[in-house]
């Protein structure tokens, strides 16, 4: 019985990782850059939702939409101001810029809202569903459901719409996509907008479960989600989903059955083993270099 409840908690945690991992994986797939500021977009999303709920007393759904709007605008803005001028620069410069943006956002938050922890209000009542002796909190159920819905919508969007096809084309070959009349800059902006909007949803789910809001809130989930993206195969949307869920479950089970001290070490050991066997991650595409 305990095993089942660990598994469910792991899936809940993994779902949040998966949604964050989507942001990393989409941006990497299309812009070929690691957006290390993604974790801090989550933090801004958490503050936006916190103020919407606490200061403006908006209903939950409106607060989520507000947070999504703030993050989407911020994501596009960051892309325009920080990354677009570096489109032709080496990937190392872009990476350093992303780290710079991350620090900028963290310190701005610290200045604006002080670094004292704020407690996120309980948005979903703490009830639990009893499934044959295992109690599952509604929060965990909602988290997993939201993750599945988001994943389905995103997959449909990428595979069925015109913009989605354009995104896939950009990820295959930017030069060829430009030649076929695709506005690559617009597609990259859209990618950032979607990724950042998802970050806001992840922020609300994260803070509903772990209700502390502080300026470095996004760092650790960001790093774990990035790991999840690499685990599943960076650039692959189903990979991010699978990687996120697996990472959450492994983390919780390692804590439960091996050691609460070593859980992170175990997670990263699994990552190393996977990368040794499948260097592109679980669902990563094989990269065949043409000679």
């Amino acid at each position, binding site marked *: 019985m*305990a095993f089942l*409840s*660990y598994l469910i*908690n792991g899936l809940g*945690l993994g779902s949040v990782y998966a949604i964050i991992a989507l942001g990393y994986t989409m941006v990497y797939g299309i812009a070929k850059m690691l957006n290390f500021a993604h974790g801090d977009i989550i933090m801004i999303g958490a503050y936006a939702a*916190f103020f919407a709920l*606490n200061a403006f007393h908006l209903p939950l759904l409106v607060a989520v939409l507000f947070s999504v709007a703030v993050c989407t605008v911020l994501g596009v803005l960051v892309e325009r101001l920080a990354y677009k001028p570096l489109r032709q620069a080496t990937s190392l410069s872009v990476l350093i810029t992303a780290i710079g943006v991350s620090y900028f956002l963290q310190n701005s938050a*610290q200045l604006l809202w*002080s*670094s*004292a*922890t*704020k*407690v*996120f*209000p*309980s948005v979903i009542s*703490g009830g*639990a569903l009893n499934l044959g002796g295992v*109690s599952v*909190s509604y*929060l965990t159920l909602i988290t997993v459901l939201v993750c599945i819905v988001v994943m389905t919508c995103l997959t449909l969007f990428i595979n069925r719409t015109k913009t989605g096809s354009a995104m896939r084309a950009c990820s295959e070959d930017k030069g060829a996509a430009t030649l076929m009349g695709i506005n690559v800059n617009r597609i990259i902006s859209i990618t950032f907008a979607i990724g950042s909007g998802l970050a806001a949803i992840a922020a609300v789910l994260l803070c509903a*479960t*772990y*209700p*502390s809001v*502080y300026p470095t809130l996004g760092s*650790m989930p960001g790093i774990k989600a990035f790991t999840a993206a690499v685990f599943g195969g960076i650039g692959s949307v189903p990979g991010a989903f699978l990687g996120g869920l697996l990472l959450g479950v492994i*983390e*919780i089970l390692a*804590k*439960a059955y091996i050691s*609460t*001290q070593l*859980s*992170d070490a175990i997670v990263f050991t699994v990552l190393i083993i996977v990368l040794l066997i499948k260097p592109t991650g679980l669902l990563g595409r094989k990269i065949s270099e043409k000679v």
Partner: protein
Amino acid sequence: MTFNKLMKGMLAAATVFTMVACGGSSAPASGSDSSSAASGGNTAIKIGGSGPLTGGAAVYGNAVKNAAEIAVEEINAKGGLQFELNFQDDAHDTEKAVTAYGALKDWGMQASILTVTSAPGAAVAPLYSEDGIFAITPSGSSLAVIYKDAANQTGSYGNIFQMCFTDPNQGTASADYLAAHKDLGSKIAVIYKNDENYSTGIRDKFVNQAAEVGLDIVYEGTFDDSNATDFSVQLTQAKENGADIVFLPIYYDPASLILKQADSMGYAPTFFGVDGMDGILSLEGFDKSLAEGVYLLTPFSADASDDLTANFVTKYKEKFGETPNQFAADAYDAIYAIAMACENAGVTADMSTADITAALVSQFGSMTFNGLTGSDVTWAATGEVSKAPKAIIIKDGVYVGVQD
């Protein structure tokens, strides 16, 4: 006035001369000059200190700063002995604490309330020792604050004292309390933070003492900085092992998450904290009903009815709009303890820092202090305080002393 101005002018000239003579490369020389210049031009004794005014532990730093200000105001209003307080922000960060120490030394600090939290305290303690400045920390409870070698408890600095209990004492006292109050529960789970001295220090002593007094520890779980959000596993295992008391030797930030997660999984043991739990009620947005029935062992209770406590609590509420916590009380006592030692030894602001330190150290070794956090408080030569802890329970969103 004119004499002071003259002295200042001469000292300034001397400073410039020294700097020119040394080619401006002698940092220690100019440092000691500036401190003597400051003491020559002032009638108030300069008290320094640092603590987290921002950051995760900001509740503690602000409580200490507020209470120290009240104490200094009261002492100055009496006439006679005068204090000047300079309290810096260290954000509970060792590097910032060292920077703050530099700023305080440049300002001409003559005595200090060290730091509010343990890790920064341990970082600046060697500097205080090297420069021979007297310090008493209100709440830096780690042994590393007063000992060079904390693990073996050897090499105490000698000029650094504590107003609060040391971490080990909190652990021992908690185990003793639980042994004496078996009605709270008999099966104990411990959840502690394994990358923090404060937490592991208390946990080690608690576990040792628990074995001695026959307490049954059924589960121990840990977490660290990178895992300080999800406690579902630790709580599930504590529950599975039938723990009816969960001992939390941690700060209130993660503790608030533990209370919330325990509540959402329907687990309601008695939570038992130490001084780090104090402050949980001031957390912005915290649902106070989650902390209902939480015990904490601290030496101060804001609802005590003695005059000293009543006066302090009223003033604090008037000025800062909230009930003072134990950190505030410790800070208030620390300032008054310095004042008492200064009065006993006849310390004045124009004495050299070395003389002040020698006088204060000898006073602290022999005097008996009565304050908010205890009566007949004494100090060992190593800097450790001796006083009795009280149990506090959170009832209807306020801290209430347990009557027994």
